[in-house]
């Protein structure tokens, strides 16, 4: 059942009950696919793909270059004598930081995990009634959530700084954790995904005497796994790169991106090390994304704006 759920997608206001099998190759009528069209599609993807991938390859190449190769003319994309010097330099620089480097790593990990976890619990708890229970004010809230996706959170920075200082959260972990828990993209994705769960299941649960909370925990959450995994990944990516220096002044509460940006602002010789930082920071979220790609795509298939 859960498997079927993941692929059923309401697209319009009155969706034709449509199901297709993700695992099978897309079946296409061959008649309307021409050879030259294939060529155009291929060339287009190759060009844009190169634009996308080349800087990433250069970055990896740069991080593996020994110092002298940084000043080759003409510059090379890949190093002729690859070395891990930049990474070892980075690790030795880490030992010279003001507070132990592990502390920055711990801060980032702690903030990322608690915020992501808290957001998923709070947002999924709210997403179920907003998707499936009819109550007064639901439409208004749903409109507000969609509306909030339309502006960048940083226009609220000044006002939020006031709120955070008024609450006495400056210089604590809370300043980074609590506001991010109220992010609206995650809620939006989960509401849209939960809408695809058949009402009959929820009705059946109610007849069996389940409370809303039990229905949420026993029926909705197990069926929404792709949705909250997607939210987990998107949140993780965002928080992993978050620099909390605006709200925190104590050095031992600051995060990894802050510490690394301090290390790499050391001019030309640290160019390689700076790219090593970029590559290292990319590894974790990229791995998480690759592993969960199909789940993300299945979830995003349900997140259309329906009005």
């Amino acid at each position: 059942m859960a498997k079927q759920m993941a692929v059923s997608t309401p697209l319009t206001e009155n969706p034709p009950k449509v199901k297709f099998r993700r695992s099978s190759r897309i079946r296409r009528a061959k008649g309307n696919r021409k050879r030259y069209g294939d060529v155009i599609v291929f060339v287009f993807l190759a060009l844009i793909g190169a634009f996308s991938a080349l800087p990433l390859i250069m970055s990896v190449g740069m991080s593996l270059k020994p110092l002298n190769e940084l000043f080759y003319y003409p510059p090379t994309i890949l190093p002729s004598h690859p070395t891990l010097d930049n990474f070892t330099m980075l690790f030795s620089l880490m030992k010279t930081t003001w507070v132990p480097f592990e502390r920055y790593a711990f801060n980032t990990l702690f903030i990322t995990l608690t915020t992501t976890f808290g957001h998923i619990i709070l947002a999924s708890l709210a997403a179920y009634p907003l998707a499936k229970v009819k109550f007064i004010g639901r439409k208004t809230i749903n409109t507000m959530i969609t509306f909030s996706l339309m502006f960048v959170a940083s226009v609220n920075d000044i006002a939020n700084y006031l709120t955070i200082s008024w609450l006495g959260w400056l210089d604590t972990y809370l300043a980074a954790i609590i506001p991010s828990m109220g992010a609206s993209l995650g809620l939006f994705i989960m509401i849209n995904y939960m809408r695809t769960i058949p009402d009959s299941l929820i009705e059946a649960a109610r007849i069996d005497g389940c409370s809303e909370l039990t229905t949420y925990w026993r029926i909705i959450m197990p069926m929404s796994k792709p949705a909250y995994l997607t939210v987990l990944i998107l949140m993780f990516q965002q928080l992993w790169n978050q620099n909390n220096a605006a709200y925190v002044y104590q050095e031992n509460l600051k995060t990894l991106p802050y510490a690394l940006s301090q290390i790499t602002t050391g001019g030309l010789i640290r160019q390689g090390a700076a790219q090593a930082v970029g590559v290292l920071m990319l590894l974790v979220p990229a791995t998480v994304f690759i592993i969960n790609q199909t789940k993300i795509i299945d979830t995003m298939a349900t997140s259309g704006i329906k009005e």
Partner: protein
Amino acid sequence: MKTGSKPKTRLSDIGREIWKKRAAYAMITPYMIIFLAFTALPVVVSMVLSLTQYDVLQAPVFVGLRNYTNLFVNDEVFAIAIRNTIIFALITGVVGYSLSFFVAWAINELGKGMRAVLTFVFYAPTISGTVYTIWSIIFSGDMYGYANSLLLRLNLISSPIDWFTTDAYILPMIIIVQLWMSMGAGFLTLRAGMSSVDTQLYEAGAIDGVKNRMQELWYITIPQMAPHMMTAAVLQITAMFGNTQVSIHLAGFPSTNYAGHLMMTHMMDYSNFRLERGYACAIAVLMFLFMVGINQLVLKFLRKVGG
């Protein structure tokens, strides 16, 4: 609800209805408190603060619309920021969205394995955190930069170009880097929308005389995908405005002759460095209206396409 309910009993009806759904209200409360406190309320607070003079140290003083008149009449840099933001938004918005759309479509023409690999290649620049700094090496001002060395060897230029400090190049450079990072959550939504269109529709289309893939795209795919196209547009527009780090890191803050200055960096300048937060709030409010306005306009347009 409306018909049949007498004015006398209506209020108690509403009360009873709310009491009946108390579980739903309880479930949305924790999330909504955070959402209201850090996303909705700050918009109102910013609007109020934008009518004051506020330097953080002293209490805000009400000045009416003076901040707004100063912005439009006396602040020459703001005029540059508006001009740059409009150019930036127009180009990255239109080109970035078209790229996301056509790449998502072209990927969908491929087999399963290639689709997964390419999705990652196009998405990777967005998760990269600091990898975008490689662009400062690609377009570095000396002959060791990839762009300069290539142009020098092709004899197109005689001396290296200072890409990020020459007025004429700064904004185009920022736009290119932003385009590189433009295939984020919006792209994933489009990619997911493409793969969730019912394949039977394509078969039916082929029988009814859809001759090539452009016709198929126009008559079948786009109408089916309208909700995804709307979500993607919102996500992409917001991400585009939120990305100030590219401008700040690559072109400097402030950039040479403010050539890379955007409304967002103008706001940061006044809120973080000059500590004129009332003035900064006025910019934030204008940014807010600007973003919401553009989003509404785009949604209106896309609804026409889909409908």
